[in-house]
């Protein structure tokens, strides 16, 4: 068993950065004033890494001391993190008020005038500027983003720099990484929908670049393109939505719009129908970004990127952008505070999309053997939960059930937090597994690289619990959080979402039963596939010789896992104690410490009988039934002589106690086949494109070449042949010339007499 070679001295240059926030405070800066640094520092570091990396590529100092830019990237992210924390503390404990948002206009991006329909040019120039908008949701997501970016960057230095395939290419990775981080931070901080969209697109670009990091891989290049284009489809609708919003409010600034969403430009009452379309189009954008049905196809493919990228983009940050956007819709529909009534359908649509995606993704996750694919579908499914919760919240808001709305909203946002933390960790842990398996495979094959061996395939693993204790622990807690094991992480939020959805369905709107049933079923399915993943990977006997050579030795990987394990394990409960749900739903007035007993009672024995039944059904499904089935299929004891550390050994041994069940028949069924093929969505889209778009493009090109340009060419060739004909009239015989002249003469006579 090799020792981990820690490289902490490399981080010494970064220590002064930690003093940045205090120094700025001493200089008299407000925390909000420093917010721009969160965005600009990574933005500046991006070209720095790229250029230096390109110049000093293969230079040993650059490679070993600077980790090919990793240290620089980490430095930039440290700046962002410290300032984000500063802002967080400032808002939680400092002078800055909760209820108000700080807007700081840096510069006027573009200014212009407008023509009104009565032929008058509006007097005041309209300005699209840049600023910062901070509220509770911003704070939470900003923290999540900066914190996870920081940790994943840290993790990457272990994961990326030790992989020979990345030799001399990592500067590109880090550059794109910080650019991505910048996009995420900017999106969260943006004070207008336009800037939100701009950073949103930057993230799309980086996602494209990072997924296509292994550009030579056909599948990676394809996946990158697919990701960009699929999200682009959403983005275009989002853009149109923005145009409509602009038309309504004459501005895209949050400050202007949220000030009074019911009145539009120059005091006109907002047409709810128009607003509905605007918000729906925004939601389409969110669907694309957050990989919801039917624009979900890019996310599983996006796992072609390096694992830190999957952790960063496709679990922790970028996919949350869509949720963030939907969360920003609350003021429009909150008729308690000047929202626009008549938008109930919006909430229903969002909840439906969420429910369908949740169920579908969970279903597909059942049969995935690629560890990252499982996580990818799990991500989709969990995001769909949040969408459902948000949809329900929007519906509640719009039907003036303010309290229920706030709980649903807060629960959704809280689930976002929990899921981001857990999923970021899960991906990193899976990265750790993949990395070590890959190394082990390289080690035993000694250069004879077997391309058929897939280090991501769980069928090659099993019994890793003893070899990789930290990873296994981390993954266990992550899975628990996702499953919603009571008291851990996601439990608190997921329970809220399910309860509120059912509440809406039972008490107010029967149509909500559809998403309600779907997500309830999904809860159980989550229990199954997450357990299955863990068990296949860590429990049972090794399915491949490679496993015996796996060691957990790579530096830089443990620390993020440990930190996130702790957060996942306790933060859910902790924050629930602090009533984060109300905090996040802007319900500051009702914010209070509820106490341990109250919280537990509220969670497990709510007074409302319906809620209680739903709650316990959920727990049963997700915590008992799902995992037990998984254990029956995949569980098992470790190999003889192997012993896992105590935190996980109980689980391993428990998993072996439910007997085993053969699922070959099921796995060979047609339905299983369909699931393997992701319910044929990808095939269907592919077919559609190859049958419509590509032939049409070829037809257009043909049309342009043959018809439009052909006309020109015809004119040309006809002119030349006509010219030859004309020249033939000049026969060379003077007789003909005279004859022609006489003809002309007669024509002249005719014309002259004809006129006169």
């Amino acid at each position, binding site marked *: 068993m090799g020792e981990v070679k820690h490289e902490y001295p490399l981080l010494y240059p970064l220590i002064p950065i930690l003093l940045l926030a205090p120094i700025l405070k001493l200089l008299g800066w407000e925390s909000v004033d420093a917010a721009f640094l969160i965005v600009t520092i990574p933005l500046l570091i991006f070209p720095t890494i790229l250029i230096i990396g390109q110049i000093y590529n293969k230079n040993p100092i650059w490679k070993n001391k600077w980790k090919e830019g990793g240290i620089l990237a980490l430095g930039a992210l440290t700046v962002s993190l410290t300032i984000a924390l500063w802002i967080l503390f400032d808002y939680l404990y400092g002078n800055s008020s909760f209820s108000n948002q700080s807007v700081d206009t840096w510069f006027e991006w573009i200014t212009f005038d407008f023509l009104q329909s009565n032929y008058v040019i509006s007097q005041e120039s309209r300005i699209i500027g840049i600023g910062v908008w901070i509220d509770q949701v911003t704070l939470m997501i900003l923290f999540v983003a900066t914190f996870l970016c920081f940790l994943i960057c840290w993790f990457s230095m272990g994961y990326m720099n030790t992989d020979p395939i990345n030799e001399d290419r990592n500067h590109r990775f880090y550059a794109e990484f910080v650019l991505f981080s910048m996009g995420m931070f900017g999106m969260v901080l943006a004070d207008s929908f336009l800037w939100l969209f701009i950073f949103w697109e930057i993230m799309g670009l980086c996602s494209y670049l990072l997924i296509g990091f292994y550009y030579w891989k056909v599948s990676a290049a394809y996946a990158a393109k697919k990701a960009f284009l699929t999200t682009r489809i959403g983005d275009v609708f989002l853009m149109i939505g923005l145009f409509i919003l602009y038309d309504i409010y004459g501005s895209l600034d949050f400050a202007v719009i949220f000030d009074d969403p019911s009145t539009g430009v120059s005091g006109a009452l907002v047409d709810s129908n128009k607003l509905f379309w605007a918000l729906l189009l925004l939601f389409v954008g969110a669907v694309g970004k957050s990989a919801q049905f039917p624009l979900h196809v890019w996310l599983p493919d996006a796992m072609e990127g390096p694992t830190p990228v999957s952790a960063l983009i496709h679990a922790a940050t970028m996919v949350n952008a869509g949720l963030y956007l939907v969360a920003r819709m609350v003021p429009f529909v909150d008729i308690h505070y000047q929202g626009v009534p008549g938008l109930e359908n919006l909430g229903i649509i969002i909840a439906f999309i969420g429910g369908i995606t949740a169920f579908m993704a969970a279903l597909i996750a059942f049969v995935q053997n690629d560890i990252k694919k499982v996580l990818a579908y799990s991500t989709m499914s969990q995001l769909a939960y949040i969408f459902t919760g948000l949809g329900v919240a929007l519906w509640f808001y719009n039907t003036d059930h303010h309290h229920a709305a706030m709980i649903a909203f807060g629960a959704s946002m809280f689930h976002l937090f929990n899921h981001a933390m857990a999923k970021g960790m899960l991906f990193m842990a899976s990265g750790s597994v993949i990395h070590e398996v890959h190394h082990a495979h390289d080690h035993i094959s000694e250069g004879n690289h077997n391309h058929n061996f897939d280090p991501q395939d769980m069928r090659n693993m099993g019994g890793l619990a003893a070899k990789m204790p930290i990873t296994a622990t981390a993954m266990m807690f992550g899975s628990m959080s996702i499953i919603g094991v009571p008291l851990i992480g996601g439990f608190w939020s997921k329970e809220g979402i399910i309860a509120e959805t059912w509440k809406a369905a039972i008490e107010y709107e029967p149509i909500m039963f559809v998403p309600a049933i779907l997500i309830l079923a999904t809860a159980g399915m989550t229990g199954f596939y997450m357990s299955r993943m863990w068990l296949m990977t860590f429990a049972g006997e090794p399915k491949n010789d490679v496993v015996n050579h796996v060691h957990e030795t790579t530096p830089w990987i443990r620390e993020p896992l440990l930190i996130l394990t702790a957060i996942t394990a306790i933060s859910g409960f902790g924050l629930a104690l602090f009533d984060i749900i109300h905090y996040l739903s802007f319900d500051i007035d009702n914010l209070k410490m509820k106490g341990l007993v109250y919280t537990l009672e509220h969670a497990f024995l709510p007074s409302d009988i319906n809620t209680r039944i739903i709650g316990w059904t959920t727990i049963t499904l997700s915590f008992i039934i799902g995992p037990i089935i998984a254990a029956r299929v995949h569980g098992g004891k470790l190999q003889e002589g192997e012993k896992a550390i105590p935190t996980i050994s109980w689980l391993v041994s428990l998993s072996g106690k439910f007997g085993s069940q053969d699922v070959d028949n099921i796995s060979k069924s047609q339905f299983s086949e369909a699931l393997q093929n992701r319910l044929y969505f990808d095939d269907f889209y592919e077919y559609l494109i190859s049958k419509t778009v590509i032939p049409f493009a070829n037809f257009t090109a043909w049309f342009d070449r043959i018809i439009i340009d052909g006309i020109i060419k015809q004119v040309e060739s006809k002119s030349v042949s006509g010219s030859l004909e004309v020249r033939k009239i000049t026969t060379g015989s003077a007789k*003909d010339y005279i004859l022609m002249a006489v003809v002309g003469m007669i024509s002249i006579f005719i014309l002259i007499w004809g006129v006169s």
Partner: protein
Amino acid sequence: MNSLSDISLELLLPEAMMIVGILAMIIIPNLGDAKIRIPLTNTSVPVFFGGTRFAQVNNPFIPSVVAMITFTASFFMSLIMLEAETNGNIGEVMEINQFTNLFSLIFTSALLITSIATFYRMPPHKNPEIPKNTDSESSTGTKIKILMNNRRQVDFYILLMMVGLGMCLMSKSTHLFLLFVCLELASLSSYVLVGFYKESDIGGEAGTKYFIVGSVASAVGIYGMSLLYLWNGNLQIDSLTSSWATMESLDPFAGIGIGLMLVAFGFKVGAAPFHLATPDAYSGASSPIAGLLATASKAMGFVAIMKILLIITSSEEGIETYWMVAIALMSVITMTWGNFAALSSENPKRMLAYSSVAHAGYMLAAIAAIGSGLGDIDSNILIVTAVIFHLTILILFKFGAFLVLTILENEGLSHNMDGLKGLAKRDPVIAVSMFIFMLSLAGIPPLSGFLSKLLMINGIVNVSAGTGSLSSATILTWITSVNIIFWLALSIVINSAVSLFYYLRIGLIMFFEEPVIEEPPAKSIYLRIIIIICATFTILLGIGPLSEYLLEIANEAAQSLL
């Protein structure tokens, strides 16, 4: 009746110089030691005419030098008269004004260029050798050629001066018959010049065709003139004008007469369908002569046409002339035919001939615009200005192109595109000049060809654009109601675009094909200078003070014509 002393002959100085030149040309080479014995005595008095020629006058260079001096003198004389704005009448048959001065200038400059070019095209040789039996066949041929060239120097230049005389007088005449006689003088001489190289296959043929068709045209024209005489009893242009103006409906004599004369002049300018002999003549004649035909001869035709159509048969403002439709149609056919025929032409001289036909079409279109009677006198003057301006600058770029061909012709390469191939490699200056000429012919700004074309379109648009229906707001009603003259402008521009193809093609051939022969063409120093001058003026007259100057002169000329 005017007495001879009343006639201010100084008004005819350019012509007088040419007459002097002709006389000198006859006399000088014949000076010799001939003596005449005074009858009944033994004293012989030398008469210096005939006998053994003096060595000095036996020099074959003399005719060309005399011609050049003559044309230079007439040229400067015309220039001086133009500058001095000389005016006057000679009897009742001639009138000198800015119009005639400018055209004298055009004719004499064209002739001057022709004579210089011919100096290289038909070089005199100082000491010709007489072929011996021992010579090889080729050297015998060369020697014979040299001898021939020496011998016919005088003939050529006399004919050239005859052409000049005819042209200059023709532009001045105010009497239709005199006009015709002068035209015939110039034409007959030019027929000979076209067929001048009688030893070549094509020289005789070109001369014959040009002569036959031209003679028929002349005969038709003279018949038409006789009809006019029958109608009016007087061929003074003024008289004809007033008779025409008082004519109530179109008199058949007058109408047919004018129509027949149009045929004659249409042939001169190369208007379709009377142009068919033009390309043959140009390609058969030597390049300088072809240049002369394309510029001076065409200008002569247009002078006649303008005098007939714009003076005699002009109409009141607002009344359409009888011939407008005929000329408009003729112009469209002419320019289209010319351009389309030139499009695929493989012989540069034929191509230039067709292009010259097309240019005639443009000018006829401008004249048709006057005939529409839509414009007031000012706009008519503007159109005539454009035509005169165009005729003037044609000397530069049309003749310039033929001068370039002259250089190639001495190598025997002017009958297909081979000669132009790779010219840029062999002689960049000439090639660039040729390219400039081509662009100017195509009407690319800022070259002078553009300005003249612009002015012509300008004139057409000016008179016609205001005619469309005022009442309705849609394009369609306007399009259907606008005078057809407007579409002439459109046809000009479309034709310009078509013509661009073959002009550019010349450029492509010169710059991007491999030359047939590698070594640069003969130096031909004066010819080269003329080409460069032509190219320079082609540019300078396009925009700026010089074009301004010429425009003003052309404007004065137009004013004195109308």
